[in-house]
């Protein structure tokens, strides 16, 4: 095919000019509206009668500087804990999801166990699980009881594993039955159909919600501080207690947000790509 030089008609030129004017107008309007709302917010907050005291006890640069190293050190524990827990929770979730799709009477107890697990741990507040694990298990005085950090991490894995299992299971169920029929018609066993046809599609489809739960998990790693180990939040808490100033909490909060940004970015990217792929198929 050869591309011909196309003379744009008068009408089309008019349309292009109109669209350009509209685009410029939109940008100006957005800028103006942002400026107005921003000013109002700043005036409202800084003009509040208690602003000076709040600034002093929440946004104190000296206090921030003083405790930043300790908080960063604590954050390193959060990061390590998050990576290990996220991987473990994903594996646990996948195992439970597969367990819940197993057929046959032999597997009934396993299926039942899987169901009870996902139902109870999705309902149980994470804080309670952490308390039960970190304080309950050492209370048994068994030989070789792991440290509270490990126990707290286990609480996190078990709680999030239940959510991830359900996300993956919904992915498994979203694969159309005709896919299984096609696989079985080729002579694949149920297990082979699951492994080669259903699971790959299910995991791909559930990637956005899985990542989203992982983002939630990243900040919930901070709850481990309740069990005692000195993570970022614990370090901030120590700062708050010794200086009677809340700035360390704000510092820890900002650090958690910064830490989450890359993963949130990845989640958005994957979600967008999944949506685009779905539209391309239609």
């Amino acid at each position, binding site marked *: 095919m050869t591309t011909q030089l196309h003379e744009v008609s008068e009408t089309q030129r008019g349309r292009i000019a109109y669209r350009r004017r509209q685009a410029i107008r939109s940008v100006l309007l957005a800028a103006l509206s942002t400026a107005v709302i921003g000013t109002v917010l700043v005036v409202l907050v800084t003009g509040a009668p208690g602003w000076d005291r709040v600034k002093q006890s929440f946004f104190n640069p000296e206090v921030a500087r003083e405790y930043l190293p300790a908080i960063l050190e604590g954050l390193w524990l959060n990061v390590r804990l998050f990576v290990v827990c996220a991987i473990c929770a994903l594996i646990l979730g996948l195992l439970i999801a597969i367990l819940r799709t197993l057929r046959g009477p032999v597997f009934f107890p396993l299926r039942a166990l899987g169901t009870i697990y996902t139902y109870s741990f999705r309902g149980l507040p994470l804080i309670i699980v952490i308390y039960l694990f970190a304080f309950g298990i050492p209370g048994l005085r068994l030989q070789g009881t792991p440290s509270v950090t490990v126990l707290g991490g286990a609480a996190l894995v078990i709680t999030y594993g239940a959510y991830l299992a359900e996300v993956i299971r919904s992915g498994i169920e979203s694969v159309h039955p*005709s*896919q299984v*029929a*096609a*696989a*079985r*018609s*080729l*002579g*694949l*066993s149920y297990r*082979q159909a699951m492994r*080669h*046809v259903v699971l*790959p*599609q299910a995991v*791909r489809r559930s990637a956005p919600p899985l990542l989203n739960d992982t983002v939630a998990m990243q900040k919930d790693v901070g709850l481990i501080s309740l069990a005692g180990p000195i993570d970022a939040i614990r370090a901030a808490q120590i700062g708050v207690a010794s200086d009677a100033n809340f700035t360390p909490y704000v510092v820890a909060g900002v650090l958690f947000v910064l830490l989450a940004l890359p993963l949130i970015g990845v989640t958005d990217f994957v979600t967008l790509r999944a949506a685009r792929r779905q539209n*391309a*198929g239609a």
Partner: protein
Amino acid sequence: MVLSCEDVRKTFGPNVVLDGLTLDVGEHEVVALIGASGSGKSTLLRCVNLLAEIDDGTIRLDGEDITDPRINPDAVRQKIGLVFQSYNLFPHMTVLDNITLAPVRVHKRPVAEAREQAHEWLKRVGLADKAGAYPDRLSGGQQQRVAIVRALVNNPRLLLLDEVTSALDPELVGEVLTMIRDLKGDGMTMVLATHEMGFARQVADRVAFLDKGKVLEQGPPDQVLGEPVEARTRQFLARIIEAGRL
């Protein structure tokens, strides 16, 4: 007989879809199933492939009762190819992987050998350049040809085709029908449910008209489509002619 169905009954709740259906298919024979929607064509094919369990009667493949609950359905399905109306290719695999999945995983054949065979088939059906493509990049006609190849590489005794052209744009129907005609030339035993009466006439050795879950009338295409004996067959064909499909 490659396939013989005897008094097959299949119900879905209160609906009796197959009501004592009897049908035999001989070696190298091509049988076209025609009949209105809901007459049981697709259900019969699914029952033969053991994707649906029958409620009574017997289905035999090469004389062996495949509806015996003690039989291993996976082993039976390995001998019967089924091609679906909506292709049902695996969207996360390339064309090549779609085709080689069963030979490699089920029949445990070496990957290189399975790939070579797949390439040969793709070349034969004019899709040599699509081996690495994903199904969503293919037209409906191309997808359906891949689906047929996917069933054929298992060297089935019997190929079941379930309205394989119904989801296709009219200009893509031809390429799929040509392929089926070639398979008949190879001597493949086939049962095809179809709405393409012209094609049934060309390719089938026998046409069976299904009505209310039974084979109401069967015989050579010219007889069943040209001079049907049963009033209901005439009615059905009259409606088809009205719709401009004969």
